[in-house]
């Protein structure tokens, strides 16, 4: 299948920001447009995480199958009903205590994409598992400039103990490159824009080909790699692991330089999107821009895999946007208070409007006979079911997109109790072309569509 070029007239119109070379690609000779689209029908894998569980009575549809009634919380996705299914009964066993006591929030965040049971530690010997997006990224990420993107609206937690003796690395990171290396999220829209479309895009400068900083980038990376190699021998084991992490990142970036024929740059390319100024103060605005960039990244085939964390797990944010002044986590321990449960439901609905926004953006992008949303497999949900009980079975999960037409959506699938969430992930991995017969705690593949 030949790569289809996106006509500049379709998405790149008028003025906006001059697209300069993405930072790490500046050395390369351009050969294909950065705005080239994915080959037709290429599958994308996306995740959208919300913390603290749901008010489940407002979430779960009463009826199974395609004739289910949208519940109060699900109403926001009515326009996309045909392209979304509600999956109930899925379980995240790794998030359970298994003798480790409290810490459900940290475990839920860490386990949501890994299916692993994170080791209880405040720092030493962090141990989780590789996440599903990273398995896919390692298999197919080489086809795009970014193997994957990890996005969010919050940075890592700032201080204190995040949850009952668990390091904040667990509750702040969905994506894990391997059992010990979480992948930090990008939460600054300006920085994300620069990564995607070039750091010079802001002022319309085209990169100076003679810029020696960029000219020597490669030899510098070679040089520091050599240095790291020499250094490693003189270090102890735990230190060597850190150096390995450093060397991995250096190589990864070098590879990306090598992959720069996937990118491009012609003077005058313009993306019809203004470079964000930074991190907006308003949550709504912040979220909107991040989801726009989520869409643009997939649309421009900069990557095919994205994880997005609306808030860190256990977040106690007050949603003043919907007149909720209590903290989300605090409310989630509702003690059966009807008033608190209504407030949680309200927050849940607020989150759903954000998902609906993303779905609308994705669905507005045409890719051949389908839309970008059709070509997605997007999982929305939380690693906790009811926030008061901290249970990890019967998770609130939506599965969006038709996997490039491979499945029929628009139904409520109720899985047998204790069906691992990883069964769904295993199915998704298979669709992405990853050859594996297990993932996380999977026991098989879900039957879907």
């Amino acid at each position: 299948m030949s790569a289809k070029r996106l006509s500049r007239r379709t998405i790149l119109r008028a003025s906006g920001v001059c697209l300069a070379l993405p930072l790490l690609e500046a050395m390369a000779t351009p050969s294909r447009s950065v705005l080239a689209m994915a080959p037709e029908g290429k599958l994308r894998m996306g995740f959208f995480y919300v913390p603290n569980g749901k008010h489940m009575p407002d979430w779960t549809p009463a009826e199974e199958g395609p004739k289910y009634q949208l519940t109060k919380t699900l109403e926001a996705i009515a326009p996309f009903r045909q392209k979304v299914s509600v999956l109930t009964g899925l379980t995240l066993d790794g998030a359970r205590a298994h003798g480790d006591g409290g810490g459900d929030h940290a475990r839920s965040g860490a386990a949501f994409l890994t299916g692993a049971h994170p080791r209880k530690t405040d720092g030493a010997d962090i141990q989780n598992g590789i996440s599903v997006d990273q398995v896919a990224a390692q298999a197919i990420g080489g086809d795009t400039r970014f193997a994957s993107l990890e996005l969010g609206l919050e940075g890592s937690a700032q201080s204190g103990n995040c949850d009952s003796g668990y390091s904040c690395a667990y509750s702040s990171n969905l994506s894990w490159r391997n059992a010990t290396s979480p992948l930090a999220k990008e939460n600054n829209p300006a920085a994300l824009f620069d990564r995607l479309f070039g750091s010079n895009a802001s002022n319309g400068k085209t990169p100076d080909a003679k810029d020696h900083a960029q000219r020597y980038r490669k030899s510098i990376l070679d040089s520091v790699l050599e240095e790291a190699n020499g250094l490693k021998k003189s270090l102890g084991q735990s230190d060597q692991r850190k150096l390995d992490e450093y060397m991995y990142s250096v190589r990864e970036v070098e590879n990306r330089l090598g992959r720069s024929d996937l990118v491009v740059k012609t003077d005058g390319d313009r993306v019809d999107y203004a470079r964000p100024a930074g991190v907006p103060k308003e949550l709504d605005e912040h979220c909107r821009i991040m989801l726009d960039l989520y869409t643009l990244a997939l649309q421009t085939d900069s990557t095919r895999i994205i994880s997005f964390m609306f808030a860190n797990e256990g977040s106690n944010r007050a949603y003043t946007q919907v007149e909720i002044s209590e903290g989300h986590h605090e409310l989630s321990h509702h003690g059966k208070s009807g008033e608190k449960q209504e407030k949680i439901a309200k927050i849940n609905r607020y989150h759903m409007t954000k998902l609906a926004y993303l779905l609308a953006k994705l669905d507005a992008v045409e890719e051949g006979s389908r839309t970008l949303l059709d070509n997605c497999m997007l999982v929305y949900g939380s690693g906790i079911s009811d926030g008061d009980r901290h249970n990890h079975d019967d998770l609130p999960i939506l599965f969006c997109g038709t996997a490039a037409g491979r499945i029929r959506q628009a139904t409520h699938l109720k899985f047998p109790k204790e069906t691992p969430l990883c069964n769904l992930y295993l199915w998704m991995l298979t669709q992405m072309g990853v050859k594996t017969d297990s993932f996380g705690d999977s026991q098989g593949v879900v039957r879907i569509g």
Partner: protein
Amino acid sequence: MIFYRRYIGIIAAVLIVISGLGMSTGELTADDAKLSTRWQAVQPLLIQYCGDCHSGEDAQAGVRLEKFANPGQILQARKTWLKISQQIEANIMPPAQSEPIPAADKVKILEFIQDATNAINCVKDPNPGKVTVRRLNRFEYANTVRDLTGVEYPKAYEFPGDDVGYGFDNIGDVLTLPPILLEKYIEAAEEISKTAIVVPPAGKKHKTEWTGSQLKIDKGGRASGNFASLSSAGEAYAFEQIPWAGAYRLVVTASGDQAGDEPVKAAVVVDGKPIKTLIIPNKRGEPKEYAVTLRLKSGRRKIGIEFLNDFYRDDGNGKKQDRNLMVEHVTLEGEKAGAKIADSELPESHKRLILQTPTGENDTEAATRQVVQRLTNRAFRRPATASEIDRWVGMAQQVQADGESFEASIQVVLQGLLLSPQFLFRIEKQRNPTGSSKYAQLDEFELATRISYFLWSTMPDDELFRLAAKKQLSDPQILREQIQRMLKDRRANQFVENFVGQWLQLRKLDEFQPSKQQFPQFNDALRNAMKRETFTFFASVMRNDESVLNLLDSDYTYLNQALAEFYGIRGVEGEQFRRVSLDGTVRGGLLTQASILAVTSNPTRTSPVKRGKFVLDNLLGTPPPAAPPGVPELKEKGELTGTLRQRMEQHRADPACAACHQLMDPLGFALENFDAVGRWRLKDGVDDIDASGELPGGIKVEGAVALRKLLKDKYQDRFVRCLIEKTLTYSIGRGLDYYDLCAVENIEQQLKQSDYRFSTMVYEIVRSDAFQKIGSRE
């Protein structure tokens, strides 16, 4: 947090008060045989009182008491056993509805656990622990870049990847380096090096050459072979586009047929105007170069060589005298120096980094080496080895060989050094111990680096480097002086902001969004003032070298007008923070500062639980056990109703919750006179505030003043130890472990003897083995 003898803390103190139990806290030696015998007696007791829940497949918390065959296995699972002992001691376990353990058996069990788990002997070279190599976190990166290069790089504050472990963001184990961060480092290195060093615009060269035959001749001669041969008056010339006005060097290679009484003469002519006369006495076949400097205007110029003194005489008898000019080659060469940047226009950073510039080709290598070496030493925070310096000198030379300037080559080296693992990580090499200890000592430079990042969150300054080079930093007297100096230095504000900001969770205050309806007076200015109060207060204890106990209770604080009014204190005017007496108020010490009261609240109300937990976690170092997972019991229960206190009492009625909440809640209730943003109040809505509570053992506490007195009278040691533990954790960048007991106890002892002076705590931490030696992980 730390897993040793926790029960000497609040829980134990309470227990001792009520039951009069004594606990053996002296030196403990593990006599294996005796311990085994004791275990045979203790295990059945444990199974009798706890086995219902803690044995078999479904054992609660995964604690299967029947599985431990001998004391060795207990030592291996010492963390679990320390928790067990803590919970038994605090009457958390067995839960209230179960049969309590009789006092005698309890002592037997606890003493056994203590002996089995605390087999650490401080006299015998205890393990100083191993810190995982620490990447600079974003604050350290920004500070270090500033001190290394003079460039401020605020973008660093948005770097991702600084996760928190053990309450702090400088813990080696959790500081990862994902590719996204490396990308940002690359971008930063390029920006910083370009800002730091100014590369002068490169000079330009212009050169054109003609062979004689390429020159034009209108009359008087012709091209002959490679020559322009002028046999009579005439000019050999060429047009040239002169790129810039200035001096050009014209080299004419010429010879002549000599005849008559003078040598061949020629003139260099520009646009028809003779500039200089050339005397060309050399014969044909022996060309010579004649150089002339021309000042040319830019634009198209005609440059010619005119033959001036043609001479021809034929004496009629076959003897001819003929004078001719042969122009063989012409070179025109101009060089324009790069614009020199005046010293006054160079940024400070440039002057600091480029201490020397070569004067010519001869000393380029020496200058390169000089500059690179100094830069590498400083970037690596130690003298770099010859091969390390060679690597970066080689990089500079590669750049120079590509025709770039000296400055550009140093710019590239700086760019590289900022990406070097030895800059990004604080490397401490493995080495063999030299003294009597089986653990190696840090070298002086590593020590300087540890101290400097501890107190300043940045690289050592010149004075520390100098002392390290002279191996004087480990000298106790000098070390003490340095610590005094460093604590007084402005850079120690970084310690206050980074340590206190995390220890007391003030960074979370930035995200705190109290309800606008309920707390309309709360705004960002007030938020900042609250933080500022706590930072300034702590800094004053630090800089004035006061007793650390002042943190717990003081009769002063620092306020500006806005915050003073918020507190209801009169007579403070203006934006400026100043020391304000708290005599006659209920406030005093950290715990009644609005920053802490707010950060432990929910957006719409106070949370006595969070406040109580804050006291236990951060002031007393006895974190309560985590809430049970799943909280399934609540599912079966109805909705909780009534006032906050009543709801909490209903919650406490649940035995699974009671054990911990009976510790947390009373501590938090005592602070109920402060609302969710830290303002004094007598009512919560319509209800009168009830700030009373009862700790286990019947200890009653009502109100903030009484709580402060209780903490000071009964738990002063516990607070001091907690502060030491937190500071030590922050300073060495790892969680503490049981073997750190020795270091902590020693620091505590020294601190007591110095009337708790702040600098003594810092000094003793720096002096400790945990800080100065390289041990192993267990």
